[in-house]
């Protein structure tokens, strides 16, 4: 199984490097531009509604608020894209490419395969986040931004639970959807919808209940730097991720492995089930 993890990491190496580099650059840039923006931001009054819609009900004229809005509110979306690619690729990707037959013909359980791929994905995600953290660690101590390296460490680590949640969701979608493309589309739709649920819910009072459906609410872009980490939210995200993960693994254990990855039978089955349930 160790070899499968290594292989997963090796396959994702360029992806991890690319995302990592992006996070590193963004971290360095955001911290470096802070001194020149600090003064101009202090005099701007952003309307509350616009702030909320942008997802920043944050005190952006302070260092922690600025970093939360400029970095921690949207970098998770990048991480989530990585998670969706990995989650839908883990098994459905191998089905699509047809490599799964040889792999699963070996004395190794499907659970072990999913587990190995998950370990590789988590290591990759941690590495990406670490690149960003490195960017902060190299800049924060030298600039008067009112944030410690420890603060950014916590804020960076806080991006992982929501990443894992969307990874598990993608894994689950890929287990039930007929093809990898359908699963990825579904996952992206869910990310987009819940991102706006969160923004919309915090702007429109009547829709405030929507925020509670959104993982982004529980992630809370500004929380770690501005108000400290809410461990109950972290626990909730990780709990849902774990539940989805277990459900995915069970689904993979029980279903047929599609052949050559055409997904044709699965699609037909799905359509049949849908039409039958509608008819019945």
């Amino acid at each position, binding site marked *: 199984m160790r*070899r499968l993890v290594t*292989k997963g990491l090796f396959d994702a190496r360029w992806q991890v490097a690319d995302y990592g580099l992006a996070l590193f650059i963004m971290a360095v840039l955001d911290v470096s531009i802070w001194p020149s923006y600090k003064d101009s931001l202090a005099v701007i009054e952003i309307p509350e509604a616009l702030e909320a819609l942008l997802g920043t009900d944050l005190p952006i004229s302070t260092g922690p608020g600025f970093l939360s809005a400029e970095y921690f509110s949207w970098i998770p979306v990048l991480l989530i894209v990585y998670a969706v690619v990995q989650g839908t690729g883990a098994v459905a990707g191998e089905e699509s*490419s047809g*490599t799964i037959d*040889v792999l699963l*013909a070996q*004395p190794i359980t499907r659970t072990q395969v999913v587990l190995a791929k998950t370990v590789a994905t988590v290591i990759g995600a941690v590495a990406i986040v670490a690149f960003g953290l490195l960017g902060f660690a190299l800049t924060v101590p030298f600039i008067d931004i009112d944030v410690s390296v420890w603060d950014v460490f916590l804020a960076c680590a806080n991006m992982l639970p929501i990443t894992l949640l969307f990874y598990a969701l993608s894994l689950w979608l890929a287990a039930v959807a007929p093809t990898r493309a359908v699963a990825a589309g579904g996952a992206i739709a869910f990310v987009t919808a819940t991102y706006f649920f969160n923004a919309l819910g915090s702007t429109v009072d009547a829709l405030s209940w929507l925020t509670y459906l959104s993982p982004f609410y529980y992630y809370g872009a500004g929380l770690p730097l501005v108000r400290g980490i809410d461990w109950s939210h972290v626990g909730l995200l990780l709990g849902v991720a774990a539940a989805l993960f277990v459900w995915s693994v069970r689904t993979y254990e029980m279903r047929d492995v599609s052949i*050559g990855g055409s997904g044709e039978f699965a699609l037909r*089955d799905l359509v*049949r089930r849908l039409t039958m349930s509608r008819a019945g």
Partner: protein
Amino acid sequence: MTPAIEFSGVVKDYGRTRALAGIDLRVEPGRIFGFLGPNGAGKTTAIRILLDLIRPTAGQARVLGFDCQRQSMEVRRRVGYLPGDLRTYDSMRGDAFLDLIDSFRPEKRDPAYRHELCERLGLDVSRQIRALSRGNKQKLGIVQALMHRPDVLVLDEPTSGLDPLVQETFAALIEDVVARDGTVFFSSHVLSEVERLSQSVAIIRQGQIVAVEDIATLKSRSVHVMEVTFERLPPPGAFALPGVRELRRDGNTIRLQARDGIDALVKAVARFPVVDLRTEQPSLEDVFLAYYIEKRPPDEEERRFASA
């Protein structure tokens, strides 16, 4: 003796499509067993059930007495498998891929034997898999299936993409498996290949086993196909002899099929002036038609297959 492979009433449905309609089959250990049928007959479906890649709708499959679903790990420890449409990790080198497969059975690692297999097949494992030809990829598939000396070797269309010389080597390799009391179960849609390589054969058609025979019996059920061009067209009914069937007339050319010996046919043909004569290797479809499925016309896939 525990059979090496046993299917008992195995049914597999994909939605409304019935891929396997309740197959029963017993493969004794220490034999080379051919699984013959046209494309789409259900060969791959049956094989993938053995590896627990798909689950039967009903019935049970066993390998060496182990249930293929409930005791799948026991089964897969003992089985070497070559998929019909082999896909491997293109970005890996051949040896890295073999290392990966080896890592799942560390106790059976045998680098010397693996090397020997590669040598015999003439496979260069230092190259990236992406750069390998179809035949070489197939060799890699054969090596990974054989290198841990499995008790049961399950091969789905193993010789596709192999040139004749390598097919010889392949035949020798599976003989070796049987020589150490292993069992070989392979599928094919080519009759002559099954005749050449195996000792017994099961013929599958539309998800049903239509015959299980020793190769010797199958061979005795010889079918000859002959296309004869005559100077003048013989009268209708000129070849209405026992064991002979007129398949088609096209101008002065008549396509004839004979079973149970060719003598009567040759003598019947010789009664008329012959311009040209061609004999053909009987296709699987010819054998089907002549012996197993006389009552029912072939379906579309089989017709396509027979004419290919």
